[in-house]
């Protein structure tokens, strides 16, 4: 179990560096497994340095940068063992337009092995979706699904 964990850790670590690089367009990141007698007890530390900036503690990163680091970690894990479905509840809220597009591009690159269900208030995320479901409360206190689903057709010139 210990070897499997270490092997998995190394794979996730490599993926994390690569996904981070995509989301941050450069910069560096790393995952460090704290040296402990028992690797099954050791903590995993995260390092992240956006491009052009010097290394600071994770807490000093901005709200949007922290969200991207968490997303990079999640997707790094999926590259080792995909989750069949992934539900994202308004994780796009703190992202600026450019980071939002990088995030959406990343999501689309993972659809081969993962079904995504994204809850959002953001128009760009809605545009990127294949299907849209609307939830409303016409009758107060009672939710209703309004299937606003469109399945995208290629845009005809």
């Amino acid at each position, binding site marked *: *179990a210990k070897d499997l*964990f270490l092997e*998995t*850790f190394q794979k*996730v670590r490599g993926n994390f560096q690569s996904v981070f690089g995509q989301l941050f367009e450069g910069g560096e990141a790393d995952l460090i497994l704290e040296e402990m007698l028992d690797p099954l007890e050791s*903590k*995993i*530390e*995260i390092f992240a340095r956006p491009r052009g900036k010097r290394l600071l503690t*994770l807490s000093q990163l901005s709200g949007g940068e*922290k*969200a991207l680091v*968490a*997303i990079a*970690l*999640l997707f790094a*894990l999926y590259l*080792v*063992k*995909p*989750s*069949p*479905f*992934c*539900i*994202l*509840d*308004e*994780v796009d*809220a*703190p992202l600026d337009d450019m980071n939002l597009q990088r995030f959406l591009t990343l*999501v*689309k690159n993972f*659809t081969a092995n993962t*079904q*995504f*269900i*994204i*809850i*959002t*208030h953001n128009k760009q*995320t*809605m545009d*990127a*979706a*294949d*299907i*849209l*479901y*609307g*939830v*409303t*409360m016409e*009758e*107060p*206190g*009672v*939710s209703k*699904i309004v299937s*606003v689903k469109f399945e995208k057709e290629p845009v005809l010139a």
Partner: protein
Amino acid sequence: MYLSELEIIGFKSFPKKTRLVFKAGVSAIVGPNGCGKTNLVDAIRWVLGEQRPTVLRGERMDQVIFNGSMDQKPAGMSEVSLTIENNKNILPIEYQQVTISRRVYRDGTGEYLLNGIPCRLKDIVDLFSDTGVGAFAYSVMEQSMVESLLSENAWERRALFEEAA
């Protein structure tokens, strides 16, 4: 493997039978504040066996039952069914589709069902073991999870790596 259908009755803000058909790919769920979007996420977590009321934003499990609105009385029970397509044969049984259901009544009793047959939570957990489903940190991500994933307290992070291993 992907979710193909979610059916809800009496769960949180969904008193009447509500059916949501999903496809593979990217789906977006939209709507005003408080209309029930996160409640759908709670329903999926709940039917897959979530045991902690706080994760579902309540103090007790029976708080997931529709507790009434201006025009409707509270429900007596809550039932959620989730149908999963086994198109890549990730699931260890011979079905093309699997439907998992969970019910709870006001008195706190309830049951789980697998393709309509009553079963134990353990049967559902065993079915999904090693598939990446059921470790909710792995399949569901919300705003508040960003802080906990990055925090000094590394145990949630650790659990994700163990799920991937």
